């Protein structure tokens, strides 16, 4: 059985989704089985959250509302964990 989940969160980190936040997000996404994507707009384009090159290349700025969508057995847990990571400012101390 597979599942779908969505969630959104605003990026408050000072420089947006740049190098270190991108690494943290990708590393966390890769701990889940589900297909996970995000976008700065509900209409896309959607970025593969498990691809460090694509995540960093998205250049998502501070203040962007980040939409996550996941599909797979652990979709709900994945979206929840990623939203929490962004809420916690990527667990990076300023």
């Amino acid at each position, binding site marked *: 059985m597979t599942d779908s989940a969505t969630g959104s969160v605003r990026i408050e980190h000072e420089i947006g989704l740049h*190098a270190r936040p991108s690494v943290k997000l990708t*590393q966390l996404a890769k*701990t*889940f089985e589900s297909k996970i994507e995000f976008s700065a707009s509900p209409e896309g384009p959607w970025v593969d959250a498990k691809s460090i*090159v694509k995540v960093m290349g998205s250049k998502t700025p501070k203040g962007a509302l980040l939409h996550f969508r996941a599909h797979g057995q652990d979709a709900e847990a994945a979206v929840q964990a990623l939203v929490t990571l962004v809420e916690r400012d990527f667990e990076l101390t300023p």
Partner: protein
Amino acid sequence: MTAKHKIANNVGIVIVSHSPDVARGAADMVRQMVGDEVPLAWCGGAPGGGLGTNVEAILAAIDQAWSEAGVAILVDLGGAETNSEMAVEMLSEERRSRVVICDAPVVEGAVMAGTEASAGSTLDQVRRTAEELRAR
């Protein structure tokens, strides 16, 4: 969330630059951005000081970053690549098949490869992620 991958199971990263400062700095970036889950080693500079690369130092770095999952090498220019190829040739047959030299920029490629490796990806996935930079 799945358990963290053990460091010994993750692909290792070796950074080879003509400049020891560049190699050390790139390694620092991997450590600080990616974390400690990836075996990592760097080398750079001529044996007598100054810019350069040498086969012995590269072999030692491969040994230091060795992982059963293999080792991905990031190089800067010319001799860094040819000396790395020579070092790979000198490895045992069993190890040689598990070492790749990535066609990617040394600093950015090291961070990308390190991120991929930290997730427990295969050597081929690690190399493809580093080289994806070039394809964009």
